């Protein structure tokens, strides 16, 4: 039986290794300074007459940063507030319902949120359906339930004795929650926020019909905007070799970003556990 299960593990690790290898090799061959500063090049495949310009993903980098920062700016505070409500006022059917649907929402396909924003803009802003603002709203919808649940879980880990001690000292409940409990759970909450940002940075489907993608550099909220995930999606399926190369490079940068975020999360978690062990 050991052999069979190890075989299963191997079956899972082969595609993982293949993906990491392809992204590293194919993506690495196209990374240079131009890659980060230039925008989409003219389409071109290797031919004996002209050389192809490599171009870059500058507009997509800017787009991803803009979309991520604005959507997290909207959704993370709202999500933390929801998480506080779920953890601190944890009784009653309303709380159970919100908790259940927050869990369910984290499992829904992200394209549904994009379609919702698309459909909403069709009704409300028909001229601005494909815009950075729509993309921001779609991503915020993804971040909100995720941050709410992770915040609630972090707050629940704070021992009740801390709350009781603070209340016994005469602090009102909102100060107990806001100052004592929240700062005690700070690492967990920040971890949840970083995880949410990492998850949303790679999202493509909700951006297809909202942010739409843009081969030119743009930071306007009312115009379509590029994003790294969109760039990979469109360029991978294109027949031009220099566009395909850009897709691999963007995939490498995206993977490095995910890795960086995951390492940051691990460091934060380890620091929290180390402090706990010392204090215990």
């Amino acid at each position: 039986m050991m052999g069979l299960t190890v075989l299963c593990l191997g079956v899972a690790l082969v595609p993982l290794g293949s993906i990491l290898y392809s992204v590293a090799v194919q993506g690495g061959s196209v990374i240079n300074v131009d890659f980060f500063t230039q925008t989409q090049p003219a389409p071109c495949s290797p031919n004996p007459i002209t050389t192809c310009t490599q171009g870059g993903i500058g507009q997509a980098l800017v787009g991803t940063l803009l979309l991520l920062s604005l959507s997290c700016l909207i959704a993370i505070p709202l999500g933390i507030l929801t998480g506080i409500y779920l953890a601190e006022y944890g009784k009653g059917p309303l709380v159970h319902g919100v908790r259940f649907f927050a869990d369910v929402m984290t499992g829904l396909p992200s394209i549904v949120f994009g379609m919702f924003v698309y459909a909403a803009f069709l009704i409300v802003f028909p001229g601005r359906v494909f815009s950075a603002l729509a993309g921001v709203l779609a991503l915020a919808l993804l971040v909100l339930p995720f941050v709410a649940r992770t915040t609630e879980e972090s707050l629940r880990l704070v021992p009740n004795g801390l709350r009781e001690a603070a209340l016994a000292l005469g602090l009102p409940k909102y100060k107990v929650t806001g100052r004592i409990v929240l700062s005690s759970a700070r690492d967990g909450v920040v971890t949840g926020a970083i995880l949410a940002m990492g998850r949303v940075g790679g999202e493509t489907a909700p951006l297809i019909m909202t942010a739409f993608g843009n081969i030119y550099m743009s930071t306007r909220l009312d115009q379509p905007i590029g994003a790294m995930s969109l760039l990979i999606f469109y360029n991978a399926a294109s027949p031009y070799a220099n566009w395909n190369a850009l897709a691999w490079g963007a995939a490498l940068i995206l993977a490095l970003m995910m890795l960086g975020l995951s390492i940051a999360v691990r460091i934060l978690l380890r620091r929290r556990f180390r402090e706990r062990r010392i204090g215990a």
Partner: protein
Amino acid sequence: MAFPFRRGARGARRNPTGSTWGDTLFHLGSGAAAIVLLALLGLIVLVLSLDAAQSIGVFGFGFLGNRIWDPNTDQFGALPFIYGTLVTSAIGLLLGVPVSLGIAIFLAELAPASIRAPLTYVVELLAAIPSVVYGLWGIFVLVPAMANVVDPALQSVLGFLPIFQGPVYGYGLLSAGVILAIMIIPTVAAISRDALLAVPQSQREAALSLGATRWESTRMGVLRYARSGIFGAIILGLGRAFGETIAVTMVIGNANEISGSLFAPGNTLSSVLASNIREAFGLQASALIELALVLFLVTLVINAFARIMVWRVFGERGEAVS
């Protein structure tokens, strides 16, 4: 006076610290944030229904059974995509669940303690890769491998079955199913592993003391006990497979029809949205939004069912992250 309560001050009995307005504000504020979440869910159903109303009015319930999707004649039906979703998810589960269970058993029962943690982390890495990178790898590595090696082999060995007949493109339902299988492995393996770890040690010891072999002890003592947790993991994997969009869109070939062969291109409920929504208008856009509504309701039900199953095993506070 035994306690230092203020006497005669209004509200002293109710809240000796005196800050009622802050508490009420905080309670209402955070409660409002929570209600926003519920309101959003209702808003999603409302808005999608409003925009899909034109298509619902034209096609009615026959939409779900109609296998023709033709923008040129304004005929739209959801059957090709329901078929594509069911077939690709079935392939994904058939291939992915046994592998995930094998990994879960290895990580929970058989692996030496020193390599358990790093191996678990490595399996979780599969979940951290964005879907679009899976699709990119799928286009340049998986599809050529399927087209040149796997599909012809299947056709030569099992070609008498109608599902393995027909031209081989590489892009098709089978390739999409394979990518889905890879993508649900981390989810199903992680939750199954948690379910197996939650089984008390006494179960294994009891089976072993009755003379069972290692495999028998795992099968009788552990797997049976963890049955509902594993079932919840499978349902969560199914939900993930149903909703997976981008990787599937990039390898499924984008054909809006039903074919009897697994090698044929097709579309799922989510991939047809990704491929067609940018250029759609009028009735086609309304039909696509109706598809989105169907997808939303189906995945809502599946995910709700899965969460209930997982909650029953781990309690309400387990598994905050899917």
